[in-house]
């Protein structure tokens, strides 16, 4: 009998970093199902390109710099899948790969890998791709036109995304059923509101996601959409289109749900959600791009340590803040 000597406590951890990342990965994979049915296996290849690029960058850098086999967790795969979800299904395969490589090499590893990065790597990767090739990032296919071919550069029936219609001050006309099931032009993982909601419930039930950031983000976005509609319509219709189209819901669940780049205090996280949503809605009003979720999240990420610091100094002064 070989007995181990280890230190207390001998209580089982209900969650590990690995299992949290596994949950996120599972939820992201579930998001791939609907686009796969609509656009064919092309979306799988785009996701694979992003994941492979992230994993290869992580492993090669790990071997070269730290002489270890990557960071040893699933975070690079989560980053890769998140990048792919924010890009359209028509994107040539080199773009997700480039965005993933940028996310890992420029945003994650220089800051010290998992747990130390200031900015969300996936958001930064997609922001980089958006700035480089906005024509490719906002080239959405019409889901009614059927499956896409598997070549890297393809010609396709272009669909007009509700985001661009809203940006012109016009009213998109999408059936409520299509809106919920994601049958309208958009990015791979950002359209199916029902699947996104299910993923959020799954992550909340598995205790891998905190609710406060997501709720504050959505509430602020809804209030902003109701008070300052971009189209001359009722507040409820404005809220419906602003929340359910574009990458807002995806950002609420997966980009605001990242514990590393969001504040660590409860109050800080609430403020973070509100700040990110306010920035996003402001960008929709005055921004040049039709989707600005990544930029809003990146800007809010920079405020995470500031928000934490404010909460901590308030606590030091005796204010009872959670």
């Amino acid at each position, binding site marked *: *009998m*070989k*007995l*181990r*000597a*280890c*230190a*207390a*406590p*001998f*209580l*089982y*951890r*209900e*969650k*590990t*970093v690995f*299992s*949290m990342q596994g949950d996120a990965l599972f939820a992201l994979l579930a998001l791939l199902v609907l686009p796969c049915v609509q656009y064919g296996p092309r979306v799988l290849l785009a996701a694979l390109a992003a994941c492979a690029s992230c994993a290869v960058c992580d492993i090669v850098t790990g071997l070269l710099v730290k002489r270890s086999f990557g960071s*040893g*967790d699933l975070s690079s795969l989560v980053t890769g899948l998140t990048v792919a979800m924010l890009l359209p299904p028509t994107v040539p395969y080199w773009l997700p790969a480039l965005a993933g490589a940028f996310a890992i090499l420029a945003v994650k590893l220089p800051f*010290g*890998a*998992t*747990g*130390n990065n200031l900015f969300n790597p996936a958001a930064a990767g997609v922001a980089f791709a958006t700035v480089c090739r906005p024509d490719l990032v906002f080239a959405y296919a019409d889901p009614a036109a059927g499956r896409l071919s598997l070549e890297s550069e393809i010609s396709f029936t272009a669909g007009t995304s509700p985001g661009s219609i809203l940006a012109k001050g016009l009213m998109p006309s999408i059936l409520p059923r299509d809106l919920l099931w994601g049958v309208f032009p958009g990015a791979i993982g950002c359209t199916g509101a029902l699947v996104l909601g299910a993923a959020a419930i799954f992550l909340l039930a598995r205790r891998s996601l*905190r609710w406060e950031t997501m709720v504050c983000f959505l509430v602020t976005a809804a209030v902003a959409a109701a008070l300052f509609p971009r189209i001359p319509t009722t507040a409820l219709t404005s809220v419906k289109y602003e929340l359910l189209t574009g990458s807002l819901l995806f950002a609420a669940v997966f980009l605001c749900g990242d*514990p*590393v780049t*969001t*504040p*660590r*205090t*409860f109050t800080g*996280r609430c403020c973070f959600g509100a700040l990110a949503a306010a920035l996003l809605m402001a960008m929709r009003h005055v921004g040049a791009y039709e989707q600005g979720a990544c930029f809003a999240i990146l800007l809010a990420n920079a405020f995470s340590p500031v928000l934490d610091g404010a909460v*901590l100094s308030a*606590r*030091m002064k005796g204010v*009872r803040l*959670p």
Partner: protein
Amino acid sequence: MPFLRGYRFEYHGADGPIEDLPIPETLCVPMPGAEESYARIAAQGDLVAAGQVLSAPKYAAAAHAPVSGVVEAVEFRQIPGCGHVWAAVLRREGSRAVRTKAVTGGGLEERVLCAAAEAGIVDEITGRPLYQELYRLRRREVSLLLACGIEDDPWCSSARAVLRERLGDVGEGLRLAASFCGAEELGIALSTREEAAAYPGFRVETANAPYPAKAFLLRRLRKSGVSASLIGPQALAALCRAMKGEAQTFGVATVAGDAVRTAKNLRFPAGTSVRELLSRCGLSEDASLVYVGPAAQGSAVTDLDAPVPLHARCVTALLHPQRKRAVACIGCGRCARVCPQGILPWEIHEALRKSSVDPFLLLGVQNCINCAACTAVCPAGLPLSAEVARAAAIRKSGDFF
């Protein structure tokens, strides 16, 4: 702080009766605190009777011989839960016993204190001598004294078993302790409300909360304006018998774990080895971790011949302990949510990583009750409770400039 969640675990306590362990041939009785040679009364070759004093240390509990026998050696060894202390190796021989006589003289308070100190009683909740604990409670002017039947350990059930089977002694001990501390009210603290029916006539407080339930209960009582405190039922039962002159030489521990065939509550003499306790319950050969004491604060044992201290409460053998590989903090904030004292362990972790530590930024570390809930929930496997303890030491030491 609001939104506290605590740490939840699956409870596998053994609800059987307390069984007597047959007294082993040799016992290795720990003599904590007896570093000075004059504190060690037992010497090699001495014949001792059951109940005879083996050590009389200045600041720790005295040790007594549980059975009559010959002191074969007095050695310095590591004892789980006590660190490196002197221990008397006792070989059982004969059946002599010292004549017990009830504590007399002085007022009741004086007699209680004398009995607690002379019987060498250790409070199993804190691991400190009962007489020191009684002094502390008296200084804090507690108004409600509770016998602690809360089981906030996945495998331990000894406190419940002692409360159930020795209720008379525990109740009498509680009355004596309360008379010393000046507590007006007595009561019993339990894990669930269903158990309360078994204790009619007692004020029952239930801590129906996740780990650390004791801290959450005291917190709730403090908020409602009651200054309460918990004392272990074994110590209280021993206090009752100590008034009649009997020393504390037996303890009750739960022997459990998934590497143990039948979990049992065993009454064992001081100095029983871990092996004796485990083999009584059937230890699997595949066990890879044995620890003495509660899961949060216990210590792992690699040598099964090490003796179990009387305040151990449980001995657990596990087949597949979780491996802990520490990764960087991901900032999930779980540690802050489970802390019953409102400390932010992640912030302490960050502060200690810096090259120069500012002790004024280590907020609330001196309030840590060492429940280790933060370490238990940390998904990154960081030793947060150890870091908080280090921060408390830095803050206390004063040599930080």
